[in-house]
């Protein structure tokens, strides 16, 4: 299995037979593309839930103030 690896040293792996810049740029772009489109929606979900939670507690406070003032 391991001898099927195409490179004998780390420097060779980075160099990619002279096409290092192009190959690694493509894989870096792809990694950013995948990460951004997974992380952004996950963070947005947390933000939405935080906002909705705040709203619910605010509504509850207003509700209880109304109740106490009507006494």
């Amino acid at each position: 299995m391991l001898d099927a690896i195409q490179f004998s040293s780390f420097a060779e792996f980075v160099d990619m037979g002279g096409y290092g810049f192009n190959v690694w740029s493509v894989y870096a772009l792809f990694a950013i593309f995948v990460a951004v489109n997974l992380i952004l929606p996950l963070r947005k979900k947390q933000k939405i839930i935080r906002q909705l939670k705040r709203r619910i507690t605010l509504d509850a406070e207003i509700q209880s103030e109304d109740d106490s003032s009507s006494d």
Partner: protein
Amino acid sequence: MWVWFFKLGSPKWFYELSGRWLPWLIAAMVIFMTIGLVWGLLFLPPDYQQGFTSRILIVHVAVAGTSLAFFPLLLVAGTITLVWRMKLADMVAKNAAILGAWFSFITLATGSLWGSVMWGTWWEWTDSRLVSMLFQLFLLLGVISLRSALEDSDTAAKACALLSIVGCINVVIIKYSVEWWNTLHQVSSPVNMDASSPNGPEFWIATLIMIVAVYLFLSVSLILSTRNEILFRERKSQWVQDLVSKS
């Protein structure tokens, strides 16, 4: 069948169902991505003509092929929105346009990075495949800006459905451009399982694994952003309020 169809249109039902699917989809995506990337970067033998730039192609082909799925998806979603007034279809369409623009951009960028060393040029205005893919990116940017300009209106839905028809015709042009106009971009290589040939099974299987990985990524990303859209648009409904106070 119809009961199922209209149930699927209910945002709450979709939210619950997709919540059960997501862990499995994410697990499958991680597995295929890992196998595809490790194989692609470490084990794929150099091409007899292209050397190690063939590593670029397994990513490029997977993203480019998948990017053609967005306009058909937008057309189906647009039709469902206009005919059955299904809110869910509109939420999917909104996020699909954004993700589709990303896919088109990455296709062009990875293609350029390959072409710059193999063709000796980053861009060629006379090549039909390149220009039609750029047109797809602009069309999707058009859909995005139309939607944000005409938020939630009937006109927006109609205009976007119309643009999706143009986009679908363009998808056919992208697909066959390399055969109709033989300029710079090469035609797709036939699937070849002969182990002795220069682009044999190891290249095909690596590409196939990346295609599956990219499709899984598309599904996960689209489901995640659609679920956000559901939470936001349904924020006043009881089930979202319950869900938020429980979390």
